[in-house]
């Protein structure tokens, strides 16, 4: 039998139990909990009309017609070209697709080279609230939002400012925005799972000194019969160092918060090949049901985020109504950190993403991996479970 070197047990196993945990160097008992990410999507606060006092951005049929008229087509021709929208590339009903793809200078791919186009002007969020973090420590800057739940001021989330008035990024909770939901529906099956481990937990409600490890698995998630991510599955950690992040944090009143640190993790080209946040942090509420729910945020290269949409060109533009040149100029305009030493232009933008996770076994097969929880830990839990007859 292939024996695992160490694993992190899901919360559900340990609820209500006093476990013998072997964590090197810790005199007091602590535990390590494992999770698999069950939802990930860009955080776009929904506060109603006050978010976008200038209105929402037009649908793709509307801005395509606008562009056709700007390019000199008559109203009748524009209507005719869009008659069979969305049509098919390379076919008569998709003639407008070719026109839109070169709408900047009539010869250059506008998605790959958005500066070949003028700035159509994306309508942006002007509301007061957004989720995220106070990444720069300032509470009085003009770009600051306020956390709608905690009232914390100085929240930086310029990515939301750019995206938040596009219809496909808006949905009243608990619904997820259309585009984010569609992306995750594909990603969760196609992409190896993302894992979170929290170690050094002495009290699930309050622990001053915990270590949070974010990594990628070699295994994929499975769905349960209710179409959610199956909890308590086992995942082996991908040893690729590109997706291995160790953060320091604390738990206060059941909310985990980590100190600023870079977070880098391989994703999937369908969304973005790799996330690389700077000054990133996590804020996750540890639910009584064993789940995690919260946000990850930090500064991210804004062009990489633009390209995550633009790489699919017309497909994402027409289906999600994301006017690519408008998005390009908006992200460039709203970027708020890491200025280029030569140009002085900011290269990164403040972001926040929603994260949810369910309990999972995180298994380290690397021979050098520290044994966070001994094999005996899981066996101890069974006896304890029976003796205590409590929990869950």
């Amino acid at each position, binding site marked *: 039998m292939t024996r695992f070197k160490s694993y992190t047990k899901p919360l559900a196993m340990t609820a209500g139990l006093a476990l013998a945990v072997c964590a090197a160097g810790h005199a007091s008992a602590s535990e390590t909990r494992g999770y698999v990410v069950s939802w990930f999507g860009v955080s776009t606060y929904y506060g109603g009309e006050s978010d976008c006092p200038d209105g929402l951005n037009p649908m793709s049929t509307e801005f395509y017609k606008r562009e056709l008229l700007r390019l000199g087509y008559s109203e009748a021709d524009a209507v005719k070209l869009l008659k069979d929208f969305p049509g098919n590339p390379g076919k008569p009903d998709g003639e407008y697709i070719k026109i839109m793809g070169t709408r900047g200078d009539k010869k250059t791919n506008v998605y790959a080279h958005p500066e070949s186009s003028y700035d159509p002007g994306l309508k942006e969020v002007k509301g007061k609230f957004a989720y995220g973090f106070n990444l720069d420590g300032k509470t009085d800057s003009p770009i600051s939002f306020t956390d709608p739940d905690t009232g914390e001021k100085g929240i930086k989330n310029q990515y939301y400012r750019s995206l938040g008035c596009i219809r496909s990024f808006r949905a009243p909770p608990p619904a997820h925005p259309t585009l984010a939901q569609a992306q995750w529906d594909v990603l969760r099956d196609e992409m190896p799972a993302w894992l979170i481990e929290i170690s050094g937990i002495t009290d699930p409600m309050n622990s001053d000194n915990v270590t949070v490890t974010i990594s990628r698995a070699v295994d994929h998630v499975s769905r349960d*019969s209710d179409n959610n991510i*199956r909890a308590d*599955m086992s995942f082996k950690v991908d040893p690729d160092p590109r997706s291995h992040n160790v953060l320091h944090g604390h738990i206060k009143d059941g909310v985990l918060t980590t100190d600023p640190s870079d977070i880098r993790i391989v994703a999937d080209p369908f969304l973005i090949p790799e996330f690389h946040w700077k000054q990133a942090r996590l804020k996750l509420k540890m639910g009584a049901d064993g789940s995690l729910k919260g946000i990850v945020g930090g500064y991210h290269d804004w062009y990489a985020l633009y390209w995550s949409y633009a790489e699919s060109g017309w497909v994402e533009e027409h289906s999600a109504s994301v006017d690519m040149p408008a998005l390009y100029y908006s992200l460039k305009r709203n970027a708020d950190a890491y200025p280029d030493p030569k140009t002085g232009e900011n290269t990164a933008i403040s972001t926040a993403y929603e994260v949810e996770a369910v309990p999972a*076994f995180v298994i380290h097969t690397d021979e050098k991996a520290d044994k966070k929880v001994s094999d005996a830990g899981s066996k101890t839990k*069974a006896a304890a479970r029976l003796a*205590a007859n409590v929990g869950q």
Partner: protein
Amino acid sequence: MLISTLSARRTFGALGMVAALALVGCGPKDDAPATKGGPISLRRLTEPEYRQIIADVFGTTIKVPGRFEPDIRDNGLIAVGTSRESVAGTGFEQYDLTARGIAAQVVDDAHRATLIPCTPAKATDRDDACASQFIARTGRLLFRRPLTQQELQTNVKDAGESAAKLKSFYGGLELSVAAMLVSPQFLFRQEVSQPDPDNAGQRRLDPYSTASRLSFFLWDSTPDTELLDAAANGDLNTDKGIARQVDRMVKSPRLASGVRAYFSDMLGFDGFASLAKDPQIYPKYSSQVAADAQEQTLRTLTDLLVTNNGDYRDIFTTRKTYLTRLLGSVYQVPVTTSTGWEPHEYAEGDPRAGILMEISFVALHSHPGRSSPTIRGKALREVFLCQKVPDPPGNVNFALVQDTKNPAFHTARARLEAHRTQATCQGCHKIMDPAGLAMENFDSAGGFRATENGTPIDTSGDIDGVKFGDVIGFTKAVRDNPSVPSCLVTRLYSFGTGRPATKDEAEWLSYQGKQFAASGYKVPELMRRIASSKAFYRVSTPGTEANNASLSMAGTTTQTEAVK
């Protein structure tokens, strides 16, 4: 269709007569008490048997499309119920479709070179000599005996005429194979008796029926060539000949198939086909979990009983099992392998010990939205102790038991205690509930729980006078229950013979039970003893069955009566 399946349909009617024609004879000797035998049987192949035969005869690359009619369970076993089965019109259509699908694969380009032992002179015309070779060899395996000269001639003639009309030798063979696969000689295990040379006036199975009974009992499939040869040369008419074949078959890795078939039947795994769970209450349960759960239990059993030749009673207490990642999510244990199976051993004291605590038992014997101590207790009694628990009266009010959110009764134990105040319910619940309540740590889908509605679950109780404090104590009590091994002996014998044991066979079964105990409760040895015994092949003479009542129906006292 060039070879008419109508002839096959007509033959079904005649088979009932064939079954009744038990011829009289004498049988092999052993030290066990003598028996008078039971009626010979005419058993319809079960779907797993059908699939296994196709794999054994034509190879595992031949796909068997579709599903068949469900089987009947009788006296706790499908193996007994198949003796009461026929083929309905719709069922025959399914057999016909399946047969055509198989036949087409057997003669296709990918398989003909392997499965057809000769090459026709012309692929576009009949070749009776080549067809005869193939049909004789294949027919012997499918019919579990050599084809009669008339059967062979008819099949070769039909294949030839079909080939000529189709201008395809292989097309003709395809229809011939399809015809054999819908023949009652294939679909039914038709047993024939003969006079027993060692016991004047008595009868026993003929050699080919002996071969079939042996092969299905030990290997869950059609006899192989060696076994058919032993039937042909008369070896199976002698004790030594039978013992030699039994020895070979028990030592074969294929014994595991026989053990799996028996336990799959005994444990009622056919019930998973219609088992449903509320996905909102039990999202972890799925059809794949159900499939894995059955395989888990069968792997656990074969590992313990065959690979390690362990004590049968330990199936209730073993901490060793096999898991997939999917099962690991239900059992909440880590599983390293990404795909497939890996061994797992629970810690000392873990409540998961034994197959009763596996999904395949606790989930199978539960309601879609809640567990059921009563159903589980009943299943334990009937499956493992061979005790018949009467069905509830028609006028029972189950409202209280079903109300899992009743604020006055947080646990199943509390609800059942209230329910049992109804006098008509007390007797049966006394024998079912303690065992079922001991398994209440496991919900309807097999997940662990320590509480129900916030109240700790009490799993203490007693079974047949043996008290236990928790589920671990319960598994030990079941393990040591004297009815457990005797039930296996009786049921395994019925599985092999396809009928309930008779009252006349009670003494023989008791003797085998003692031998089973003396062997250390080794199942392969028990199977060897049964397969080597005279009783296994003894056939009652016509007209005596009425006086030789079924043991399982008349010979057991229900626990309800015992409690009273």
